[in-house]
């Protein structure tokens, strides 16, 4: 379809101007013609009226005197009036009196119209009726009929003129608008041409020429400004692109090189990463989850238990006497044993349970979603039973047991930390109860641990407030019936709690580190006391001080001893340090080192509680002991228990063969005394002679050479 929209603007402008001018001209013409027609009709009507008046005036006499001939004469002048087609005169009797019809026309004179006095336009002709009045008296009528030719001719004439004017104005309009439209279209065409050039050639350097101040001028200025902007952006972009391409090329090369290197290391890195991930959460030795992973699992299982309102249990395992096996048979065997135990533990639990190794010989088992505490007990019992079976390692048949502490969520705690702590406490309780046991946590244990905390606080004060005291138990040489030395024993006289056993507070002191200052205090006090006795004239008296495991495992104990010796001025040869078998065995290498140093200083070393441990003789032989002390637990049933007699006889034989001196403690009656005398053990310590006493009392004993016991020394 032909559309106005698609024709060029200059055509549109021309068309617009032509249409507007034509319409306005046409309207003006119509108005003029209409007005002229009205005027013409008026003129025609006036002319006819005048003519009728003339006829009326001229014919009045003829009418009055009934002279139709004369009347006819008055119409005679109409022959000169070309436009009059017909005329007639009527008398008052309405009869035609005279008439005229234009020659060549076939018309009929109509009968008189009574309404008279009017003018009627019939298109082709006009009719006029009017009265003939003489001196105010109506005496007849005039009828006139005229053609409209004049009017029509005039109209045609006007139409012709209008058409000519229209045509002329159209021509002028077209010519003028064709010239004038350039004012508008030229800038537009320039704009359009430049825009097309820009889009096809991508050439942003071109500009549109134009300096008008109208809207088009502004448009051109704006367009040029836009081109400026685009050009500068384009340049920028091009520069940036070049830079970017250069950079990309450089980076690509670098990347290619890096990729080659990376491809090589990637596989390694991945495997390392996964291995690291694994190691971060697993124990290297056993492959069991470690403490970190265990804590995660505990946390998530507790959250689950909280939601589902189920129970969960923690089992804290500590292998009994593993250290001895590890130390005596070597780490390799110990590691194998740990692996074997790990496998057994895993077989004792469900799939959803977690067996973790916390380090050393400590294990923790998480039992989620158990129906009650009895379930945990069953599993603990199963573990204990399974571990009873001996394990073979490199030809060794090893017996191992474990102590287990159990805490149950939510009864024994609702968070991981509390549950672990309570399981730990329960485990220690199991150890206290004789090992190879599983013990549920109870609130009392916590009370116990609170008591321990209270004790710790008290112990710190005890040192400051001199609540600690040393008692001395005499050592008697029965062959010579004389006190040859003393063993210093620590006593804590608490102001409210009364006498507290070293068995109770020494572990607390060891745990808290208070053992260090306490140990120093003991050494200094005892050595000073010994010096006093020496100065009092008992220069052959020896003094034994117990070394705890904590003291022995810390470096620097030899310096403390040396300092105490120097300060007191006591001869090192008069002093003896007693070490329990287990203490020595816990870290045999450092123990040997320390003991060697002490021995080198001249201090004697005694093995306390010999025979209670599991130490093999090969280890014993490596330790630099001078003396072996037979433990009171063996002495107790002597001589009635043949088993104990055998053990003690073996110990005596061993000591003698190793050329170690022997001393027996815990001798309470004469039969025991006789037994040891018969077996050549001359050094005896026990209630038979004296309980531990204060220093002042001991001096009295020395002075009187009498002992408070049942057997008196014989001078």
């Amino acid at each position, binding site marked *: 379809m032909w559309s106005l929209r698609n024709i060029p603007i200059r055509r549109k402008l021309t068309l617009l101007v032509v249409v507007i001018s034509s319409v306005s001209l046409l309207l003006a013409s119509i108005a003029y013609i209409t007005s002229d027609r009205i005027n013409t009709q008026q003129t025609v009507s006036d002319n006819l009226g005048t003519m009728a008046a003339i006829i009326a005036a001229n014919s009045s006499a003829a009418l009055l005197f009934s002279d139709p001939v*004369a009347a006819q004469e008055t119409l005679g002048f109409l022959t000169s009036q070309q436009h009059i087609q017909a005329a007639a005169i009527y008398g008052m009797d309405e*009869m035609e009196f005279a008439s005229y019809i234009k020659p060549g026309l076939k018309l*009929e004179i109509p009968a008189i*119209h009574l309404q008279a006095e009017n003018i009627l336009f019939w298109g082709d002709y006009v009719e006029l009726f009017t009265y003939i009045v003489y001196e105010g008296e109506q005496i007849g009528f005039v009828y006139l009929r005229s053609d409209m030719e004049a009017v029509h001719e005039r109209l045609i004439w006007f139409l012709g003129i209008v058409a000519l004017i229209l045509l002329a104005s159209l021509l002028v309009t077209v010519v003028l608008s064709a010239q004038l439209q350039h004012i508008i279209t030229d800038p537009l065409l320039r704009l359009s041409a430049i825009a097309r050039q820009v889009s096809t050639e991508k050439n942003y350097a071109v500009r549109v020429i134009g300096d008008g101040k109208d809207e088009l001028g502004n448009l051109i200025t704006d367009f040029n400004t836009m081109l400026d902007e685009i050009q500068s952006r384009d340049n920028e972009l091009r520069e940036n692109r070049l830079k970017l391409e250069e950079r990309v090329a450089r980076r690509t090369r670098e990347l290619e090189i890096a990729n080659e290197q990376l491809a090589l290391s990637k596989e390694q890195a991945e495997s390392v990463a996964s291995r690291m991930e694994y190691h971060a959460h697993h124990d290297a030795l056993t492959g069991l989850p470690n403490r970190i992973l265990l804590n995660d699992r505990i946390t998530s299982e507790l959250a689950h238990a909280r939601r589902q309102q189920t129970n969960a249990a923690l089992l804290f395992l500590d292998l009994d006497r593993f250290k001895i096996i590890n130390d005596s048979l070597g780490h390799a065997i110990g590691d194998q044993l740990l692996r074997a135990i790990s496998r057994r533990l895993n077989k004792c639990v469900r799939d959803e349970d977690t067996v973790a190794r916390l380090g050393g010989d400590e294990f923790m088992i998480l039992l989620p979603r158990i129906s009650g505490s009895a379930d945990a007990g069953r599993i603990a019992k199963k573990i204990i039973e399974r571990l009873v079976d001996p394990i073979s390692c490199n030809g060794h048949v090893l017996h191992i047991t474990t102590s287990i502490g159990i805490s149950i969520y939510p009864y024994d705690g609702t968070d991981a930390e509390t549950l672990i702590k309570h399981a730990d406490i329960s485990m220690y309780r199991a150890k206290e109860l004789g090992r190879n046991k599983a013990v549920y946590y109870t609130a009392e244990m916590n009370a116990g641990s609170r008591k321990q905390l209270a004790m710790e606080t008290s112990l710190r004060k005890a040192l400051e407030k001199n609540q600690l005291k040393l008692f001395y138990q005499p050592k008697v040489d029965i062959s010579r019936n004389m006190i040859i030395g003393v063993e210093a024993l620590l006593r804590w006289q608490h102001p409210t709690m009364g006498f507290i056993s070293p068995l109770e507070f020494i572990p607390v002191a060891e745990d808290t580190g208070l053992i260090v200052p306490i140990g120093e205090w003991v050494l200094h006090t005892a050595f000073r006391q010994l010096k006093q006795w020496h100065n009092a004239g008992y220069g052959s008296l020896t003094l034994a001080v117990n070394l705890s495991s904590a003291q022995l495992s810390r470096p620097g104990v030899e310096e403390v001893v040396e300092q105490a010796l120097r300060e007191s001025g006591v001869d090192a040869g008069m002093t003896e340090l007693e070490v329990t078998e287990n203490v020595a065995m816990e870290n045999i290498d450092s123990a040997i080192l320390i003991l060697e140093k002490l021995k080198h200083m001249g201090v004697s070393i005694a093995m306390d509680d010999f025979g209670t441990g599991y130490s093999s003789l090969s280890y014993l032989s490596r330790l630099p002991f001078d003396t072996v002390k037979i433990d009171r637990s063996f002495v107790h049933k002597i001589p009635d228990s043949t088993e104990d007699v055998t053990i003690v006889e073996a110990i005596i034989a061993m000591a003698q063969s190793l050329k170690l001196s022997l001393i027996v403690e815990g001798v309470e009656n004469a039969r025991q005394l006789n037994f040891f005398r018969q077996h050549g053990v001359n050094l005896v310590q026990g209630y038979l002679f004296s309980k531990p006493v204060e220093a002042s009392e001991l001096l009295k004993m020395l002075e009187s050479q009498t002992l408070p016991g049942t057997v008196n020394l014989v001078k």
Partner: protein
Amino acid sequence: MTTANDMPLLHGLPRIVRCLLATLLLSAPALALADESQISEYRVKSAFLYNFSRFVTWPDATLQDRTEFSLCVMGTDPFGAQLDKLTGKTVHNNTLVVRRLKSLAMVDDCQLVYIGEDTTRADVLLLVREQPVLTVSDAADFIEQGGIIQFKLVQNKVRFRINMDAANTAGLRISSKLLSLATSVTGRD
């Protein structure tokens, strides 16, 4: 339009037939019915008397002092009641009055005098000579006697002759329209 309704029967006929008919209708009664045509004739003539007065101008002095216009009949009255119908009409602003004169004595007070057959026209004319009195008569030689307007039947139609000299003598001015209708005008240059 009312043309069709009002169109008389005659209009449907050809013009020539109409003319013939009109001639017959107008002439036949005059021949066959003499009395009736005579009445009709005088009816026309009485109207003519009135119309004459309208086309004649009297000297200002004649009509100024009076309110009446006297139309007088001397002698035999051929008009009868027809003439009385003119009474009350206005002539030059004066009311027309019809007077039938018994004697000549009153004649100079008339503005128009019809002089009948039996009257001595010469006496009357003598009396009104140089008086502004329009004299009218049917008498055949009336103009020659010095009368101003004389009726004359032409083809049975009432026509008239005018004596301009007599009118001038009387001081009357006769309209050219009236003159143009007269069958003859004497004394005109």
